[in-house]
């Protein structure tokens, strides 16, 4: 069963067709890789799914319910978290505060009560420990290394316990040791039931990590399936090698 269904999604920017009747299904419990050459529309798909840019045509459904037209905050509250191509954190908030911002609370009273309820604080510290960055809990985000920011961004997204996480180039600008660690974290979180949709250029990372792969080319999904079978598809080889 698909957790996320993208059906005939299209987006134009002036004369440029960024996404062209693209259809993708993300199975529940999978780590789905979204790959394609530069400019194939991967990030545009991410931005439309998460409500950052409006679609022209098509539909996006999460758990069989349409989420078109909803703002990014509402989509996040439904259970879809995302990270950005370049790690984005709140630079003047501490790492711990960065973790507390995404926590979902119900009711107006809860909103105006203390920012760091003890149980939320404990959960945030546990997550920082899980990601091996607990030592920087009280350091402001702007003082963290790029790798620490990447991990913090991932941790913060997970604080709201999303069912689906969209990762935009998690391997970008990251050294091989950290990349291995990020891959391991994703696998462990996936084993806890979180579904991932990952945009990535690092092919060995994608092929080792993902259970499903979708290939985009000129805004269209040209192939999908298990990594090994997608790798052999002539259309994919054409798109990547220009043969």
């Amino acid at each position, binding site marked *: 069963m698909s957790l996320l269904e993208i059906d005939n999604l299209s987006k134009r920017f002036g004369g440029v067709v960024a996404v062209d009747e693209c259809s993708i299904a993300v199975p529940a419990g999978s780590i789905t890789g979204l790959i394609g050459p530069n400019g194939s529309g991967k990030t545009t798909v991410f931005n439309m799914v998460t409500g950052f840019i409006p679609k022209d045509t098509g539909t996006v459904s999460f758990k069989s319910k349409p989420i078109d037209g909803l703002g990014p905050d509402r989509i996040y509250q439904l259970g879809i978290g995302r990270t*950005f191509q370049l790690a*984005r954190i709140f630079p003047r*908030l501490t790492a711990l505060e960065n973790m507390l*911002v995404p926590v979902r609370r119900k009711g107006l009273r809860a909103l*105006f009560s203390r920012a760091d309820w003890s149980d939320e604080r404990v959960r945030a510290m546990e997550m920082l420990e899980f990601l091996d960055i607990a030592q920087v809990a009280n350091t402001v985000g702007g003082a963290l290394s790029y790798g620490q920011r990447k991990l913090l961004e991932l941790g913060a997204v997970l604080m709201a316990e999303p069912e689906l996480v969209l990762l935009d180039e998690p391997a970008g600008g990251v050294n091989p040791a950290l990349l291995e660690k990020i891959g391991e974290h994703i696998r462990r979180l996936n084993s806890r039931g979180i579904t991932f949709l990952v945009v990535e250029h690092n092919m060995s990372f994608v092929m080792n990590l993902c259970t499903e792969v979708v290939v985009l080319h000129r805004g269209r999904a040209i192939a999908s399936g298990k990594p090994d079978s997608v790798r052999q598809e002539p259309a994919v080889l054409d798109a990547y090698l220009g043969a």
Partner: protein
Amino acid sequence: MLQAGVLKIAGIIVLFAIALALPAIAPDPATTNIAVFTMMYVGLATAWNIMGGYTGYISLGHAGFFGFGSYTLGLLLAHLGVAAGYTPFLLVPVAGLATAVLALGIGWFALRTRAATFVIVTIAFMFMLQLLAENLVGLTGGGGGLGFPVPPWSGDYFNTPYYYAMLALATLALGISWRIRRSKFGLGLLAIRDDEDKALAVGVPTRAFKLTAFVVSAALVGMIGAVYGYYVTYIYPQFVVDPLIGISMVLMVFLGGLGTLSGPVLGALILEPAQLWLAYNYGASRLYLVLYAAVFLAVILVLPRGIVPSLTVLIERRRMRTPPAAPAPQQAVMP
């Protein structure tokens, strides 16, 4: 840690006690007049900081809310036929409520913009209000001004009720600001200040948060404007919807520390008495504008983060440099 907390609370209590006793300590009308305006700017800067400091949305149009609150109370007193005395103070919250409704409408549109565009929209809105106050002659009295009833209090006592009204509003603004700063809502506002799109991506309903902060900030400024109108007893569009009032509160926040709780208070306590001292010593000249320009330059060049954040960093650095007192060195450090 606990000791620092106790010291902080004790300091706040002492400062508040001094503020409460000030009219008894220094009853001279010239001093209480300075105290009224200083307390007014403590409240204004604190209220402005709830929007400008916490969310990073710089409004230069808050003087519009100040004037609107002032006119609202003036018109209420005139139309309801309320006599001078203490009763007009009871209507100040009504002026705040009316300003909140206005801010809701203005914020709905203005907060669709960001950064420099938002600044310009707020300035435009302020001048629109000033023009309306000048041209709706039948309602506001236009350029001829609007009079408030004058209380029959003696010269020695006259400033005291206004001082306490300003003190109450400044305390209210500080209480709200403190509460917001420590809350989940406040954390959301600070997240908006740092990266609004990222805040949206992690579920902060940025539009609702910004609008709430804008309305709360404007309502407080409107109430302070209402007390100001009653204090000066006659208001004119160009003096009550005055860009300089708006810029003053912004400058005080920048001087003290943007987005901090104590920064706006400190900024107001430094700048407003300095401005009044210049006015008293050098007549009604606008010499204080030169002072403001100098302070603005100094803040940008020397203290871009303001006094409180700069001091905090300095203290932190010193603390980190100071070696821990406990373990003695195990090895001699002689060369």
